[in-house]
């Protein structure tokens, strides 16, 4: 989490703000911890006041006053329109495809937006044991759209995942249809360098670069030969209002913790 209180946006702040911009008003968002949580709550404070926040912990239409530190914050339980059990949340709400936008992070992502959050290295003798799946496989399968938020580097953007935890666009040959997944899968990947979107076959294409970043830098931070769109847009820099709101939101959490 950025410690910046004023001055220019950090790359992480830009990533969060650009992710927030992807949220449209009145969407139903499934929100986890970390940058997606900040992005969703930022969108709600800015251009999407009527988006609906759903947390895997069972809170439906939570309206947290403060940015939650965990998906089990009592603030979520107290402000939700309804609380349901975890099995109900996963079966009737997430699995049934009632989520418009699921946010996912990744330790590794490949060109078809498949995601690894399980291990780095061999499963039976891992270099790094990561937390694991959580709700990601079902969010990836069933949400109408998925927004992936991940810092970009050759370590995270890899040619081949060490472990496939969640399916994005499979091998690019209609995998989702074959697997009977109801959702569209990842529609955008937002990094600290730019914005990538899948092409018609599901392979990621560089669509926009953030202020101060050049295309070559993005290529060098990608573990495969990156497709770059003919026209790469320049990300609108974070506005004063966006930056101020994000920083206020986070400062409130720090002072309360």
């Amino acid at each position, binding site marked *: 989490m950025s410690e910046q209180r004023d001055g220019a946006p950090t790359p992480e702040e830009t990533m969060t703000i650009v992710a927030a911009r992807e949220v449209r008003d009145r969407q139903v968002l499934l929100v986890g911890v970390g940058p997606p949580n900040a992005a969703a709550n930022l969108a709600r404070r800015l251009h999407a006041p009527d988006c609906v926040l759903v947390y895997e912990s069972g809170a439906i239409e939570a309206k947290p006053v403060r940015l939650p530190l965990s998906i089990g914050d*009592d603030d979520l339980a107290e402000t939700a329109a309804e609380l349901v059990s975890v*099995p109900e949340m*996963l079966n009737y709400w997430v699995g049934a495809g009632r989520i418009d936008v699921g946010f996912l992070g990744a330790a590794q992502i490949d060109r078809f937006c498949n995601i690894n959050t399980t291990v780095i290295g061999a499963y039976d003798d891992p270099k790094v044991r990561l937390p694991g799946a959580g*709700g990601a496989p079902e969010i990836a399968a*069933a949400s109408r759209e998925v927004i992936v938020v991940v810092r970009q580097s050759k370590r995270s953007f890899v040619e081949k995942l060490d472990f496939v935890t969640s399916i994005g666009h499979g091998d690019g040959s209609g995998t989702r249809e074959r697997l009977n997944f109801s959702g569209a899968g990842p529609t955008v990947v937002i990094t600290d360098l730019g914005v990538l979107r899948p092409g018609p076959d599901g392979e990621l294409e560089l669509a926009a670069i953030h202020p101060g970043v050049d295309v070559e830098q993005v290529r060098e931070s990608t573990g495969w030969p990156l497709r770059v769109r003919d026209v790469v847009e320049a990300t609108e820099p974070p506005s004063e209002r966006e930056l101020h709101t994000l920083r206020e939101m986070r400062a409130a959490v720090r002072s309360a913790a």
Partner: protein
Amino acid sequence: MTRSTQLSLSEAIATHVEDGDVVALEGFTHLIPFAAGHEIIRQGRRDLTVVRMTPDVIYDQLIGMGCVARMIFSYGGNPGVGSLHRMRDAVENDWPASIDLIEHSHAGLANAYVAGASRLPFGVLKGYAGTDLEERGRQSGAIAFVECPFTGQRLSAVRAINPDVTVIHAQQADRDGNVMLWGLTGVQKEAVLAADRAIVTVEEIVDELAPRPHAIVLPSWVVTAVAHVPNGAWPSYAHDYSKRDNRFYAAWDEIARDRERFRAWMEEHVLSASGDTATVGGEP
């Protein structure tokens, strides 16, 4: 039917948790039964198969203290902070011992509890298709394919989970041993109903359980033992009784990174503590 018995926490664990048991300490981001976990550590249980959707700091502690032979789980992180370093050390370096992992997605493990509570041998879900979780799960016998007999669609099946004992923390029990919890109630009802025995630690023993919004009641006859342990969820919380200790969760990252520091913390705050009250505020 047999109603639950009120016991001290140490008696409840001594009587109902044995070496080699399949033990579920449940509570999804709320009402995590830390005090009961600490008593399991103090009583030196070994070779446990521990089940939890989110292992959290409590299983980091059980693993680091060598109680665990195998873990069934779906998300092994320190929520909002990062890694569980004791779990990582066990998996990556076999310290203090190697542990077997059976891993699910949240939906997979939740449905395994649902099947267990329904006394069905398996649950069905759409997830897992195409992932390496499915492949691993097939090898471990936790996940399989099942074909819809009507549509031919290929779905995933998860093997039911029926713990020997489930332990949860709740806000209240009455004097007959009926239990009430409220707020985010997670998967606790399923974990209790799936188990052979259920231990519940509670914030308060009351004369009457007053109905309230978003509450669930577990009748006395599906609970084995109730122990009165105020603050028994610390550093997790009990809605309307305590706040989550976010500072401790952050501090745990540093404590658990180092084997010696971890051992020292456990020695001071858990091993040398009484068996019947909660460890609270143990930040160094």
